[in-house]
């Protein structure tokens, strides 16, 4: 190993999936003791590039050098051997196993497992880096933050000195992010090279030494963080100048008075929902949604967002409480009842292809999903749905070979447009959207924000479950904060801060 060699050098890396290029002739150099940010929109090819470094994907062409030596990774094992550790956006942990089992997974020291000795080693290591991990705790009992700490420890346990983190902050509160950054700086101080994948500009500026920007699979530039400004970065990411501010038109007077003055469109009153294990997933949740409003819901993942949406949509049975839709209690009504009663409610679930749409069916058959219930008789009529499908494709500029293409074959943004198009088409009064821009690029996200604002202008009450606090603050009129199934805050979006929301997300206790 040469002293001056970069920790990672990737040269001319290309990778395609089917007919689409994910990476095209990318060069990347990461130095030891450097925090290198990989910046780009969703779909720019950041994760693909790093997955090639961790042995998950194999490049179609190009070469990789680790500490100056040429390497070819046939599997993650080879990558681990070279001291590379990757923390994936969706944690790769085995839920029913203990922290210890997860940490030692994939190693090869000895046939029999000596748990005591392993626990000791793990404790030593976690003390050295100031990480708090209990070796015997099961992963399914851990919070998101704990899981991430475990992932980090797992990587360190293998002696990794090159750390790749894919969107590590996406699911953390601002306070947890600060802690994570402290850990990363500590690792840098110990000589590790860290690559952090993100699309959040503020974080990039705060933590990184250098930045490589990817756009549509190509490396646009590598710059020193200290010598670059945010607008320049945005232009590199998106390829043109964009204004990253979201319009917010207020239809209500500001302040708390606005709440009591009008009759709510949707009143949720004391709703409690139990999960499978009889624990409260929602605990006495009450709020009111008004017309002409986007109501944001913030919270750490798994704080009851899914249950909230599904309870309102009639998919989840509640233990207690009432939900009034224009004065009519709809709690306990099934989605079928809700459709039959003519209640106009649209729902964009988090899992678009797993719940909102049938991936293997075409756009026409996905349009039928919501309206066949109102068809009379035995025979399925496709005609009206085919017309509607075509209209929606035209109106929302959905990129698809035809309305007869299976939706799973479309890109994420177009899939979301099909779903949103169908729900908006039913002329809803209430529109529930769970993470509607997750995985979409900036252009598609802004199209979605515009569509939601259009609906708001038409008088629709929109519930917006979000994860990006900046977006919540800019887009929404009010923000509810969920923590452990309870509402810990109802904030006026114009007057709150990320820190305040983050504080409430963890239950309001520091």
């Amino acid at each position, binding site marked *: 190993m040469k002293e001056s060699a970069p920790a990672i050098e990737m040269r001319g890396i290309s990778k395609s*999936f089917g007919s689409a290029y994910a990476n095209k002739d990318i060069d990347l150099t990461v130095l030891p003791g450097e925090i290198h940010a990989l910046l780009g929109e969703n779909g720019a090819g950041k994760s693909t590039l790093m997955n090639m470094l961790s042995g*998950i*994907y194999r490049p179609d062409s190009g070469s990789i050098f680790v500490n100056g030596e040429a390497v070819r990774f046939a599997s993650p094992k080879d990558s*681990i051997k070279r001291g590379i550790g990757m923390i994936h956006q969706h944690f790769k942990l085995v839920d029913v196993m203990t922290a210890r*089992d997860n940490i*030692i997974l994939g190693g090869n020291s000895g046939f029999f*497992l000596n748990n005591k000795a392993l626990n000791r080693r793990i404790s030593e290591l976690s003390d050295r880096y100031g990480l708090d991990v209990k070796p015997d705790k099961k992963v399914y009992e851990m919070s998101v933050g704990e899981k991430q700490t475990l992932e980090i420890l797992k990587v360190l346990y293998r002696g990794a000195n090159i750390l790749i983190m894919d969107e590590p902050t996406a699911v953390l509160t601002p306070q947890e992010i600060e802690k994570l950054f402290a850990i990363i700086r500590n690792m840098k101080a110990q000589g590790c090279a860290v690559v952090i994948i993100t699309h959040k500009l503020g974080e990039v500026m705060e933590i990184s030494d250098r930045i490589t920007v990817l756009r549509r699979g190509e490396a646009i530039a590598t710059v020193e963080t200290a010598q670059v400004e945010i607008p320049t970065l945005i232009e590199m990411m998106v390829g043109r100048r964009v204004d990253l501010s979201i319009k917010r038109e207020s239809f209500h007077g500001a302040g708390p008075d606005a709440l009591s003055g009008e009759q709510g469109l949707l009143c949720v009153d004391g709703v409690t929902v139990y999960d499978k294990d009889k624990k409260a997933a929602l605990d006495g949740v009450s709020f009111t949604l008004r017309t002409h409003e986007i109501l944001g819901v913030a919270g750490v993942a798994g704080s009851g967002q899914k249950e909230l949406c599904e309870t309102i949509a009639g998919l989840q049975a509640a233990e207690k409480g009432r939900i009034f839709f224009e004065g009519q209690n709809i709690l306990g009504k099934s989605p079928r009842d809700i459709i039959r009663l003519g209640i106009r409610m649209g729902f964009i679930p988090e899992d678009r292809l797993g719940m909102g749409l049938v991936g293997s069916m075409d756009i026409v058959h996905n349009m039928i999903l919501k309206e066949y219930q109102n068809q009379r008789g035995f025979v399925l009529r496709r005609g009206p749905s085919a017309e509607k499908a075509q209209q929606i494709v035209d109106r929302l500029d959905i990129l698809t070979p035809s309305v007869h293409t299976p939706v799973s074959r479309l890109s994420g943004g177009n899939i979301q447009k099909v779903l949103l198009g169908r729900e908006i088409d039913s002329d809803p009064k209430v529109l529930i959207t769970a993470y509607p821009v997750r995985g979409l690029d900036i252009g598609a996200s802004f199209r979605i924000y515009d569509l939601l604002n259009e609906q708001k202008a038409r008088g629709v009450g929109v519930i917006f479950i979000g994860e990006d606090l900046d977006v919540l603050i800019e887009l929404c009129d009010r923000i509810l904060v969920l923590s452990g199934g309870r509402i810990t805050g109802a904030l006026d979006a114009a007057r709150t801060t990320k820190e305040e929301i983050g504080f409430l997300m963890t239950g309001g206790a520091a």
Partner: protein
Amino acid sequence: MEAFLAAAIVAAMPLLFATLGELITEKSGSLNLGVEGMMLMGAVTGFIVAFGTGSPGAALLGAFGAGAGGALIFAIITVTLRGNQVVTGLTLTIFGSGFASFVGDPLIGKSVPKVVQAFFKGAPLPGLSDIPFFGPVFFRQDVFVYLGYILVILVSIYLYKTRPGLHMRAIGENTAAADASGVAVDFHKYAHILFGGGLCGLGGAYLALVYVPMWQADVVTGRGWIAVALVIFASWNPTKAFLGSFLFGALSILGFRLQSMGFHISQYLVDMFPYAATIAIVIVSTHKNRKEDLPPADLSVPYFREER
């Protein structure tokens, strides 16, 4: 009572081997519904080898190899070619029963050679067999049964106390996580599918060599499927698999007992017991709350590393 329980142990053995085989297969993430087929392949091969060579060891090896061979077909289609596990398993069952009746056709009605029969005669374990009650029930059995006991212990240790056991469980629970951690997924899947199939083959061989020491094409009669149900019943735990097999062994000879005690009840109705009980087990097992009792989370999910 002792005699009845001792006979139940004997009746439990084919189920035990098959259940442990399927348990190992499922723990590593594959749902192989071809147990019945692999048992039949093991049964006919074990019988033919015993018939041809007169060597019990060779017969067992042959049976294990045949079961593993059937499992190899399953592994190639589902692991390498990522085919549908349910349909592949069903096809393996159809193929296996066709194979057994095709290959075994000339041997119908023939008996297992005396040497082999003698080898599988009861052999009381010195010391242990004198323990009151437990001795006669558990320790005056044939070598096959002792092999079964040892297997339960070894499989338990393997699953929970060794590194390969940890790795294969991780694959069954979260293949992508195991892969990203550097576990060789395909290798482990193949190894455990094959070993599991081999055990199923041994279960079949027990039926053909010891339980009914004469060749008949329908020797397995649904025991493979009962084994699949027993894996669920046992919550993927080898010790509970032993208890379940014992229970079903008892159930399957209960009718015979009742008749010999003077109850007049049709053989055919009695024959329904184990099948009805299996259904009962499947229903009862539907409700499990402890996370550790649930099926491996990635059971029967095909895995392709470059999936996006």
